[in-house]
């Protein structure tokens, strides 16, 4: 009996997180938007569990509410929301954090500490950048397919990451990891609103057959350290993913004899290695199928296929080079992690250059791209349709 008493008393003494909170007394925040309002910060919380009006609880239907507060500092703004909300703000289930362009340009770390330090908050939420729009407006848009906005953003991100090679997801942890890592910079997906914001945040948005406003993912945002430096187009994002070895499949369109040929490539693999201290070697291997072809090339002829193959290799190398040049000279952001590779291979050398890496040394890195891409198959059509007509 004494032992049992001891065990029970230890529970009281040794536990730190015994804060009791009844579920209906919590305002469960699933989305956070951070904007800048002049010099002040504006934070908006998307509260997921607010049964508006006469909604019967048994339907399990959640309506969302957005609370926002403005203050000189982030804690000030957060305090304003606490005062507005009748329930206790609970940040344990934050799904997405959306920051505005201004915040991103200013440096995300200025606002990040508060969320990172909060013991309640999980660090696995997605980080997004609101492009051409206030971040607050993004979390207000109600999607017809998901019951609450933050969830629809997360679903949108995840499905895009899985199906479209141009997209990526960055969790808060990833972002901070990239920034703190030696010689690496983060990229963050952007999100924007298509359509009318005001009507899109109304419940009627989900009642129409075609939503008046909806969310769409935009280009990827390139960060240098924690500051936004620019955007890349969808095609370029694909290549970034390719270099980072994040994707296995790309649909690549190349120009061949003034016709467009799209190749559906798979099993793509990228290897980053160092030839010497300042020379990066990129090796890309993979295979592809003809996906779409609009010309009268005789693709049943293996020679033609070899030619297309060659052209594909060349074209891809060219675009990669162009992209890397752009990063080196224009954005000065090492999103590919070249610096990290140098750091892990030549740590002493790295120590000499790390302070000026982004601005001075990154652009001096020479990049050689080798590619070994093969087309073993022509898809399920033997000839092109144009040729078959003849």
């Amino acid at each position, binding site marked *: 009996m004494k*032992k*049992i008493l001891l065990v029970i008393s230890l529970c*009281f003494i040794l536990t730190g997180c015994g804060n009791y909170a009844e579920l*209906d007394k*919590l305002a469960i925040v699933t989305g956070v938007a951070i904007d800048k309002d002049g010099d002040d910060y504006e934070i908006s919380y998307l509260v997921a569990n607010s049964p508006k009006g006469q909604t019967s*609880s*048994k339907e*399990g239907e959640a309506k969302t509410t957005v609370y926002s507060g403005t203050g000189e500092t982030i804690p000030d703004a957060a305090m304003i929301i606490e005062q507005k909300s009748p329930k206790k703000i609970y940040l344990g*289930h934050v799904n997405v954090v959306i920051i505005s362009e201004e915040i991103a340009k200013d440096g995300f770390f200025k606002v990040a500490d508060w969320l990172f330090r909060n013991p309640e908050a999980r660090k696995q939420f997605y980080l997004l950048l609101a492009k051409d729009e206030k971040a607050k407006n993004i979390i207000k848009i109600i999607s017809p397919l998901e019951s609450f906005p933050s969830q629809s953003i997360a679903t949108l991100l995840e499905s895009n990451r899985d199906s479209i090679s141009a997209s990526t997801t960055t969790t808060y942890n990833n972002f901070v990891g990239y920034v703190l890592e030696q010689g690496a910079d983060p990229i963050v997906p952007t999100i924007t609103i298509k359509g009318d914001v005001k009507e899109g945040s109304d419940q009627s948005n989900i009642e129409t057959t075609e939503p008046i406003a909806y969310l769409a993912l935009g280009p990827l945002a390139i960060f240098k350290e924690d500051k936004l430096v620019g955007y890349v187009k969808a095609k370029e994002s694909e290549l970034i993913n390719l270099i980072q070895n994040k994707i296995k499949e790309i649909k690549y369109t190349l120009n061949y004899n003034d016709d467009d040929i799209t190749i559906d490539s798979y099993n793509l693999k990228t290897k980053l290695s160092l030839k010497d201290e300042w020379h990066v070697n990129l090796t890309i291997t993979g295979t592809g199928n003809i996906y779409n072809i609009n010309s009268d090339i005789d693709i049943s002829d293996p020679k033609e296929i070899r030619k297309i193959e060659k052209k594909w290799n060349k074209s891809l190398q060219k675009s990669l080079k162009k992209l890397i040049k752009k990063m080196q000279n224009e954005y000065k952001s090492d999103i590919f992690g070249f610096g990290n590779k140098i750091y892990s291979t030549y740590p002493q050398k790295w120590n000499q250059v790390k302070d000026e890496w982004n601005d001075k040394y990154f652009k001096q890195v020479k990049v050689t791209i080798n590619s070994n891409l093969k087309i073993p198959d022509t898809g399920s059509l033997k000839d092109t349709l144009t040729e078959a007509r003849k």
Partner: protein
Amino acid sequence: MEKIDKNVREVTRKIKKLYGESPDLNTRIIDIQGQKIGCLFFESSSQTSTISDFIIKAVDYTKDNIFDDLFESLKNNMFNSQVIIIDDFSQFPYFLSSGFTIIVVDKCDKAIVMETRAQLDRGVTESTTEPILRGSKDSFTESHSKNLGLLRKRIKDPNLWFSELKIGRRTQTRISIAYMNDIADKKTVDEITKKLKKINIDGILDSGNLIDYLTQNKSSFPQFQSTERPDIVCQALLDGKIVIIVENCPFTIILPTVFIDYFHTSEDQYQKSVNISFTRVLKIFAFLITLFTPAIYIAITTFDQNTVPDKLLISLAVQREGVPFPTAFEIILLMTIFEILRESDIRSPSGMSAAMSIVGALVLGQAAVDAGIVSPITVIVVAITSICSMIFTDIDFINGIRAWRFIFIIAASFLGLIGVLSASLILLIKLASLENYKTSYLSPFAPFNLKAQKDAIVRFSISHIFKRPKYISEKNQTRQRRSS
């Protein structure tokens, strides 16, 4: 020891006085050549046709065929399988009440006792408390000899021994301790006999009366198995366990019992082993669900919201909207109502059960949710909990789970998941420290016995089980001989 009076009239007078001139006591005095014979029996507990057929006829026959002694002649002429000679008057009430007929003869201090028992029990019927899909359907009855017979006809080995005791000053209840002489641990048999002999109570009416004498621990989990199925008892006997059969009670007690036994049924032996293993795993899941669900629900909704997936948490939060009580209270309220419902359903006559289920299902489920007194998820939690507890047949085990479920709920409502964890540690410690008749309650897991694992959670094919469980008896281990 009280001598039997040599005067028949004196004996009948004494008996009548003893029973307060009870009207069902029949005393008949027959005169044979000047010598009186007295027949004593209870009309209520004896078969009168048997008495007329055998005793009166025998007396009539003896009338003309006395050789030397009337008593000896009578004794030899009794055409009955069970004839006992007694010389102790104090044994009269026991035999009379049991439905025997006593014949006393003038000038003789001995009496002839003959079995003329009336059939005061129902026949061998199907078991209603432990229904099965496959297997023998007979079950024990209230008749002691029938119960022993049901065992005897299954195990024909002479090593099936019954040792009998009579307990209860007034009821004089026959209690048989059945065991396989060459398998069961003799020390355990002696210990049980010793414990039973110590009992000095006025009456034993059911095997349940003996439980408290036989298992001394205060744990809410039972340490005995109670069954009315002879095939389960025989299986237990063959395992080396000891069975206690009480007169007038169809439920037998099997000792010693370990924790995992409550997850086994007799059908386990009759069905395909692969499927049975699956069923047993399912039962273990059900055990965990019924024990932990309400506690974990309380813990994750009031303390550890972080552990719940987003969508589920929001769904739970919206459901709880408008419910006036704290979650823990809500759960305890509903669980209590369910327990009351269960208890009243068992006790109520069958005609009332329809009304009860309507009230239970509609009023307490649907209407309580609609009225906003409880949240729908609570009803689901309580429903899952109670369904899962119904998978067990032993009522004492179900009640043991219930007691601990409430302990878990209380722990969870004060400390969250940490409370649940520490309560389960305490439960584990308590179960592991239980021991009855030198068998650890958590055998064969703690202490671990590799060979016994063949029939613990998973069941191997019977053709692969060669040994009896060692933790029950170490004697005569071979169950099956390898065929050469």
